[in-house]
């Protein structure tokens, strides 16, 4: 339970999350991996906060969670509409505009 382990876990989560955008052309996976990265960041925040003021950090994490939830909701809505229209969830349903 040492800080290094926690940091490793948080680094793992964040980098896996951000890197997750490129593993699959699927929009949902991108969104989810965004959430994974976010929770990694939360973990990091909590670890740093253990010495100074844990309650403030907890409050912050809760706020961040609500933000994440809100964002996921809207993003999911946008994607759902796109999927409903195009029938599939891959990235090319959103690649008309280029150049």
């Amino acid at each position, binding site marked *: 339970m040492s800080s290094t*382990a926690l940091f490793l876990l948080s680094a793992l989560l964040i980098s896996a999350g951000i890197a997750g955008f490129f593993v699959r052309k699927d929009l949902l996976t991108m969104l989810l991996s965004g959430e994974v990265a976010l929770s990694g960041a939360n973990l990091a925040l909590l670890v740093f906060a253990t010495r100074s003021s844990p309650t403030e950090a907890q409050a912050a994490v809760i706020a961040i969670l609500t933000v994440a939830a809100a964002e996921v909701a809207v993003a999911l809505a946008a994607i759902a509409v796109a999927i409903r229209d195009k029938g599939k969830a891959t990235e090319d349903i959103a690649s008309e505009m280029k150049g």
Partner: protein
Amino acid sequence: MLDLAFWLLFLLIAAGLGIFLFASEEDKSVVSLVAVFSALGGVFALMGYTFLGGIYVLLYAGAVVVAFLMVAWLVSGRSREGRSIKWAFFLIFISLGTELSLIFLGSRSVFRRVSTSVSALGELFLGKYLYVFELTSLLILTAVVSSLVLMRRRS
């Protein structure tokens, strides 16, 4: 005993992530995420943020992932493309991972378990962080309105 639990959860998270990223079926990858988030909730609890751990499990493992499952079923089976650009994943994962761990370890902040009380949290939210609390409510309202607008069919 504590460390043992932590490492177990650590492994669970790592495995979950692996499945999430590289599973071929849609639903298997989403389910694996449930495991990841619950394990993370556990870690928080171990660290002393018991309340947070609980919320985490509840919110993420429950609501968020379930929502994704619904959408995934909506579309399941039709969209499974093969793996796409792999090199980008590894490149970003490794470089970001090393950088982050270097910075984290460089901070040399030592971890010790904390004991948090929900009442202190409450006082904080309704005291110093009242503004934050209000803003989160505004945010949720906006989110609701936005998603409704987005989902509405062309009238």
